[in-house]
């Protein structure tokens, strides 16, 4: 494997990781008001992703910056061509992020309702816009010789891209519900487990539909066809298991379903990076790769840093592996405090 191919694979892996990890964050964000009726329940649903979502979001920043560095013409053509699509995704991610943080500080029911609505809507829109951008990589766009999109901003909203967007958004919802059954307790867990069953079925239907459309419309090779079948199998298994199998196993299957959907896009894309309606103007791995020296420098850096990143992120998941209790953080503590508090503790303020 030459270095441009290595970087293509790395970018594909990072996008896949992004949807596996942020996928459940989006799902939980969108569903937190559905699985939680009371304020305490909603808080415990969000506590399930609390320690991690910020770190998970970096899984998007790195492949985008990596595309900029390893395939500059791909980065330029993709982002400028999908202009409003990416802006939609950015706006959704921004609102999602600040809603998670600001919502913790909300005073009063009205303010909390505003943040709840914003978080739910933004968590739905983020995977939709990013899914559209990913689907457009293979859908075939009207590009000119410079890699610029012709035919106006509407050309970015391809039917195939929209199908990928719908599939990934639905998978995020199912993935989020599945994740909640893994990290919550009590009523929240109960509602999540009901939702999981109800959401996995339409998600699986969309995965199957996407697979059929991909095979019929794009005629992928043998490898790409197998890649398309992986998420189909995983989604079916997850649906079957969602009746009662262990939460961990169902979550693993749902992770393979959502990750496999993203991975299949990149497997089908290779050796191209941005497909044009005119084969002559399609951008390819070889045609857009950065210089060998730049790729070497980045490969060495990544070889050193990525294992470290994976290690401490994995440790972060391990630290918070316990289920979140349903009690509100401001409520009375269940654990008898043995803190050697010399000053004596003031009564909790009404925050």
């Amino acid at each position, binding site marked *: 494997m030459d270095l441009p191919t290595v970087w293509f694979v790395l970018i594909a892996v990072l996008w896949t990781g992004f949807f596996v990890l942020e996928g459940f964050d989006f799902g939980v964000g969108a569903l937190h008001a559905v699985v939680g009726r009371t304020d305490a329940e909603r*808080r*415990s649903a969000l*506590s399930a992703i*609390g*320690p991690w*979502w*910020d*770190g998970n979001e*970096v899984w998007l*920043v*790195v492949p*985008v910056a*990596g595309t*900029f*560095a390893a*395939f*500059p*013409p791909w*980065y*330029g*053509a993709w*982002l*400028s061509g999908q*202009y409003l699509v*990416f*802006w939609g995704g950015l*706006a959704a991610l921004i609102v999602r*992020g*600040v809603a998670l*943080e*600001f919502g913790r*500080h909300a005073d009063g029911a009205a303010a909390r309702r505003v943040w709840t609505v914003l978080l739910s809507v933004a968590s739905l829109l983020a995977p939709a816009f990013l899914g559209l951008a990913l689907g457009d990589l293979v859908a075939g766009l009207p590009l*000119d010789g410079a*890699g*610029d*999109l012709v035919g106006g901003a509407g050309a970015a909203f391809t039917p195939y891209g929209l199908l990928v967007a719908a599939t990934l958004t639905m998978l995020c919802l199912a993935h989020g519900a599945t994740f909640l059954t893994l990290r919550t307790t009590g009523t929240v867990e109960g509602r999540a487990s009901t939702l999981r069953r109800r959401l996995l079925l339409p998600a699986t239907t969309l995965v199957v539909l996407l697979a059929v459309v991909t095979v019929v419309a794009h005629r992928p090779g043998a490898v790409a066809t197998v890649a398309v079948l992986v998420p189909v199998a995983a989604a079916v298994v997850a649906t079957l298991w969602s009746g009662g199998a262990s939460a961990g196993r169902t979550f693993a299957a749902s992770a393979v379903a959502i990750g496999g959907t993203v991975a299949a896009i990149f497997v089908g894309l290779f050796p191209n990076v941005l497909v044009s309606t005119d084969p002559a103007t399609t951008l390819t791995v070889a045609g857009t790769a*950065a210089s060998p*020296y*730049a790729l070497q*420098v980045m490969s060495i*850096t*990544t070889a050193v840093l990525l294992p470290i*990143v994976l290690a*401490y992120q994995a440790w972060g998941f391990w630290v*918070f*592996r*316990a289920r*979140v*209790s349903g009690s509100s*953080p401001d*409520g009375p503590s*269940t654990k008898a*405090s*043995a803190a*050697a*508090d010399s*000053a004596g*503790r003031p009564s*909790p*303020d009404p925050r």
Partner: protein
Amino acid sequence: MDQLDLARIQFATTSIYHFLFVPVTMGLAVCVAVLHTHWYRTGRAEPARVTRFFGGLLLLSVAVGAASGLVQEFQFGLNWSRYSVFVGDVFGAPLAMEGLAAFFLEATFLGLWWFGWSVLPRRVHLFTAWMIPLGAMLSAVFIMAANSWMQHPVGYEINPVTGRAQLTSVVDLFANRIFVWGYLHVVLVALSFGGTVLLAVGAWHLRRAARARRAGTPDPALDEQARLLRGSTKGGLWLMLVATVLQFQVGGQLGINETTFQPMKIAAAEANWDTCSPCSFSVLQIGGFDSGETPVKIIEVPHLLSLLATGSWDGQVQGLAQLDEQYNQQYGPGDYVPNVVIQYFSMRVMAYGAGGLAMLGLWGAFLLWRRRFDDSRLFLWVSSWVVIAPFAMATAGWLLTESGRQPWLVQGLLLTKDGLSGSGGAGQIVVSLLIVGVLYATIGITAAVLMIRHARRGVGPLPPDDQSPGDRPTTRAAGAAATY
């Protein structure tokens, strides 16, 4: 308004906005880690409460910084695709490294630190606290290296086939003199920013307690806040003072670097139209921002510009007119003079602001020495309001740096107008400007309100199930503690 104007407005607003929160985050992260270390050493509950209080402020700042940072990562490709294609080989590499080396570290450990409050063993918890400023400081390394390359391109060659810039030496990228001094500058900005926040927050509480005492109605709750925050207020004062004094030294070197690599930038900052030697510095001038106008200069300091720009008493500073003529011959016909008004006033906002912070720092040090720190009405009032100054200075700093590079996108290599995107046009930038405008304004105001509210409420109690120092974490209870 054409595509170029709109794209430039968008880049300026998004970058300046992002950098309102970045130095706060960097500076506060260091301060919080220091406070956490103090808590770790004493093992008492009070430093723990102060640490958590400033941690809450840090989280708010990070939320906005990270959200606006996403836009930074995408907008080169969105609005400047020609630029992206041309420089990606050189400019993209540090950005990719930034994500891997810095953003992952900062974001992952921020979650671990905040949610690990009563979950992690004490020593591990302290370690997570220090990883946050490490990540923040690292991220500035890479982005400053990338930006410095735009100011002074090094370690590259132009590929004759593709016409794209290609990296030839990554070492040169980080040995760039513009980068080394620019990075020092940003670190000191962040530290003085962090110090100013600690000082301002504490001063507000000290002032309230003092006012109640003076009125003859001492309030135990206010006195407790004052007692809790006194140490961090003093520490903030010293940090602000030391960082600002060091900044003058770095700032001097930055001026000399500009004279060497971007003479237009410094000539415009002094509205200096004709080559001079020695050159004076005007404290303020009216008019003279267009060639041919004669300015009214209010207080001229002889030799000061020569000192700032060249480090010598009689050093020669090239004039805008002569430089423009030289560039017209070198690069072809065009207007190579940046916006002089922006340069002139940005420079002064930054320099006078730093002077003001240093004076305030000395004033505070004097009061500490005289034991009048806690009761000085005027000093505490000024200190609580001074938090606005660093925001204005950070804005001015980036305006000076980026507007002073114009009309170049990459100095001497690529003009700004040649870096735009080919897809789309002005119409969709208007749409994205509206999105950004509404979002950023709302978020900025909300963040400011929440930060001020958090700061005014003062130090709260510890989270409900905090543990005694050295407790082993119990995983079953861990979930209960790690609440959102």
